[in-house]
C-alpha cells in the first residue's frame, strides 16, 4: 500500500481501491445531483455557477475512478465504474445523494460538502501516493472556489429576507444528520491514514467545526447540536435516492453499451 502508485496494477490493493471509490463516488454523485439544476436555477448566472461546479466534480470523479480501475487491475476504467456498477457497490457518503430540495437546501448540502472536502484535500495533496497527491492538487483549487462560493450563499440567504433565512435553516435541518458520516473512521480509513495516503478523517473535525461557526455567525444562523448520525454510504448502504440517481445517470450507457458521441 505504501508504493501504491507504482505497483497498483501488479499488486491489487482492496483498501486503496475502496478509498478511491469513496473519493470518486462522492464527486460523481454530487455532480449528478447538481446537474439536475441545469436549466432550472433561479437565474441564468446561478445556473452556470452550479453547472461549473458539477463539471469540476465530474472531472475529479473521472480521475479518481480511472485510477481506482488501475488499482483494481481488472480492466475497468472510470466510465465502467461510473455506469456499470449497482447502488450497493457505490461508496459515496449519504450527504451527496440527498435531494436538491430548494436552492437553500442545495446550498446547505454544497457548503457542508465543500467545506469538508477542502479540509480532506488539503491533506490529500500531501499523500504518499503521488497520483492521489497530483489529483488533489488540481482539485483543491476548484474545491476552494466551491467552498467560498457556497459560503457566500449561506451568508446571503441566512442573513437575507425572513423567507430566505427560513429556507436556509430548513435546508441545513435536512442535511445535519449526514455530517457525522464524513468523519467516520473505519478499517479502510485507518489503513489509508497509517500509510500516509490520506488524512485521518476524524482529525478534520475541529477545523470543520471552526469553519461552520464562522460562516454561521456571518449568516446570523443558529448552530444547533447535530442529530444522531445516519451512516452506511461507505459500506454501500444507501438511501432510496441513490437508486433513482443511478437509474437516470446509467440509463443510456446500459441501454446502449459502447455508445459514443
Amino acid at each position, binding site marked *: 500500500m505504501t508504493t501504491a502508485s507504482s505497483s497498483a496494477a501488479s499488486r491489487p490493493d482492496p483498501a486503496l481501491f475502496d478509498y478511491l471509490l469513496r473519493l470518486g463516488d462522492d464527486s460523481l454523485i454530487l455532480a449528478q445531483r447538481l446537474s439536475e439544476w441545469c436549466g432550472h436555477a433561479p437565474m441564468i*448566472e446561478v445556473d452556470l455557477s452550479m453547472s461549473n461546479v458539477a463539471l469540476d466534480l465530474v472531472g475529479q470523479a473521472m480521475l479518481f475512478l480511472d485510477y481506482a480501475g488501475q488499482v483494481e487491475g481488472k480492466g475497468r476504467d472510470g466510465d465502467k465504474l461510473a455506469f456499470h456498477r449497482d447502488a450497493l457497490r457505490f461508496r459515496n457518503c449519504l450527504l451527496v445523494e440527498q435531494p436538491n430540495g430548494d436552492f437553500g437546501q442545495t446550498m446547505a448540502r454544497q457548503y457542508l460538502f465543500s467545506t469538508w472536502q477542502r479540509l480532506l484535500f488539503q491533506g490529500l495533496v500531501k499523500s504518499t501516493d503521488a497520483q492521489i497527491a497530483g489529483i488533489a492538487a488540481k482539485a483543491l483549487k476548484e474545491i476552494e472556489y466551491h467552498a467560498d*462560493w457556497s459560503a457566500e450563499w449561506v451568508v446571503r440567504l441566512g442573513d437575507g429576507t425572513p423567507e430566505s433565512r427560513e429556507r436556509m435553516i430548513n435546508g441545513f435541518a435536512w442535511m445535519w444528520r449526514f455530517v457525522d458520516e464524513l468523519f467516520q473512521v473505519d478499517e479502510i480509513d485507518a489503513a489509508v491514514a497509517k500509510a500516509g495516503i490520506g488524512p485521518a478523517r476524524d482529525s478534520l473535525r475541529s477545523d470543520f467545526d471552526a469553519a461552520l461557526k464562522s460562516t454561521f455567525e456571518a449568516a446570523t444562523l443558529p448552530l444547533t447540536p447535530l442529530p444522531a448520525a445516519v451512516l452506511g454510504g461507505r459500506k454501500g448502504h444507501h438511501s432510496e435516492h441513490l437508486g433513482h440517481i443511478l437509474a437516470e445517470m446509467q440509463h443510456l450507457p446500459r441501454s446502449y453499451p459502447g455508445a459514443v458521441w
Partner: protein
Amino acid sequence: MSNEWPLWEVFIRTKGGLSHRHAGSVRAPDAELALRHARDTYTRRLEGVSLWVVPSAQIVASDPHQAGPLFEPAESKIYRHPTFYHVPDNVKHI
C-alpha cells in the same frame, strides 16, 4: 420581475499588460457575487486573468442622438492621424 437583481458590466483582462475590455453583463445581488457570476459566465474557457465588475447604473453613456455633433466633426480631420510625417529609415520599432 420587479425584484430582479441589479445589472453589472463585466470587464476582462485577457492577459497581463493588456487593458480590461468589456465582455458583457451579469445580474447579481451585490458586488462580491457579481464577480463570481462574471467568473462563472465569462471566464469558463480561460478568457482572463483579471475581472472588473461595475454597476451598470454607474456607467455614464453618451447620447446616441448626439452622435452627430459628438463624432462627425472628427471625420474631416484626417491630419490628426500621424500619417503625414516622414519616418527616417533608421528609426526602428514603429
